[in-house]
């Protein structure tokens, strides 16, 4: 198994954190992984990407990811941006934070209403729904290789107490809801 993923979001949305948690969860389940941030300066609110590799073999390459198997889109508006599907394999899949199935024919699209899930769990900072743990849960489900137990563990490693509980609920809810 060798999967490459690219995450699209806005600076400050926690996509690097999501990418790291995803890889961390995969390693808990016995896989090898790499979490790769964008190579440069981040700006809050601006479009940014992070990427990840997950494999059942040690990964020795360090070049960037050009042909992902999965792209995850944290901001629904980003579906309008061409860069989201740039290089995506023909067999590639999209996981998007979206209420309804978008009109995309070429790829299999999984939707999850991560914004609603984040709000329901009180994950709002400065009026901004913090969707990264919900998206993490959805990506994990689509990947099919990450257990709920590993998800809980990596969220708990980052946030303790009530905040940890709410983030775990968001991740598990998205894991269950993504279609």
């Amino acid at each position, binding site marked *: 198994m060798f999967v490459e993923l690219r995450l699209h979001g806005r600076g400050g949305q926690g996509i690097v954190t999501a990418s790291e948690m995803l890889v961390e969860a995969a390693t808990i389940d016995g896989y090898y992984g790499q979490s790769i941030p964008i*190579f440069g300066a981040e700006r809050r609110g601006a479009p940014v990407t992070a990427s990840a590799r997950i494999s059942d073999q040690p990964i020795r390459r360090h070049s960037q990811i050009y042909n992902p198997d999965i792209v995850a889109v944290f901001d629904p508006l980003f579906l309008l941006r061409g860069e989201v599907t740039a290089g995506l394999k023909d067999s590639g899949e999209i996981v998007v934070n979206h209420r309804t199935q978008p009109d995309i024919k070429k790829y299999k699209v999984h939707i999850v209403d991560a914004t609603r899930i984040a709000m329901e769990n009180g994950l709002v900072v400065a009026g901004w729904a913090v969707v990264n743990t919900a998206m993490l849960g959805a990506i994990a489900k689509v990947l099919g290789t990450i257990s709920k137990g590993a998800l809980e563990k990596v969220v708990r490693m980052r946030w303790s107490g009530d905040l940890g509980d709410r983030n775990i609920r968001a991740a598990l809810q998205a894991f269950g809801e993504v279609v």
Partner: protein
Amino acid sequence: MILTGNYAVSYGVKVARAEVVAAYPITPQTQIIEKLAELIAKGDLRAKYIRVESEHSAMAACIAAEACGARAFTATSSHGLAYMSELVFWAGMGRFPVTMAVVNRTLAPPWSIWNEHTDLLAQRDAGWVIMMCSSAQEAYDTAIQAFRIAEDERLLQPVMYGLDAFSLSHTAENVDLLDQSVVDGFLPKLDPAKLPVYMDPDNPITFGNLLGPDAMMEFRHLTKEAFDRAPAVIEQVAQEFSKISGRPQTGLFDDYRCSDAEVALVAIGASSGDAMDAADNLRDRGVRAGVIRLKAIRPFPGREVRERIGGVKAIAVVDRDYSYGFGGIIGGELSSCLKGGVHRYVAGLGGRDITIGDFEGMMDDALSKAERGEDAKEVWWGLKELA
């Protein structure tokens, strides 16, 4: 667990029980120092953190710490290393076993924060052991071994090791950490009695005095002899570390599938894994390709590499660095150790990605030129036409 290359170094330095960490905390500093400051503040590492006003002073503080018998570490990057350079030589020529991590970045102008190896390689004549890491795990393992190598009585020279900016420094990947007790058994406390310079209040001496032409050559020759012993020290430390960690370690270099190769590519740093994946791809289509990954740049394992690939039909060397008016630095160094030409590829300057396809292309290019009997010459790989 997963760690970035930066944090892997921090945890390696922690478990190696560094006693002094001196650093200038402003750009171009790395997260290595940030994490160490945090570990020291929390009491997880019992060390003196000295916040200095420049990298020049950081190295001065590390030298002074070693002169007092304390294990010292610092980290820097690009311009910080360049600014530190005078004291880098002082540590090397004075034989202070400091260790230092360098996140490789491009020197300006124009400004850049991206990966290039010229910053590290520009320090290659300073009397330091110089290494390049190829993974976060190796960064952790090297951070620990560097102290053993530096403090070995046969060597007693400082050690610096490079991490490619972003692709290693900021990429998080699997890292297994060692228990403190295991590392304590491998790396004993620094014994000041063996240091060439030890400032002992009970036995006051002066050092760093003027030395005339009548004795300087002999003094320098002692350092040259230390470096003659360095390869054996590095290999032995790597072997012992393999035993305590259960992970195979690279001493001077990796030989990946070169024994029957018709084309061998020589690379350093984080992208050497991509080169190995490229070699596998070439073999899948019937080309016998191999890779030499140099971990040690100083001492330069030229003779050892020649023994492995001296007879290979085509040798390609990749340089993510450049010496203007000469050529790629590693290519030049390797050429001086090999008979016949080396196909020299300059690639990835300023942080441009070197892909697996690029490495395949270089090996194909080198082999086809060798088969046509063309002279080896320098190629700037992927150079765009100026508009």
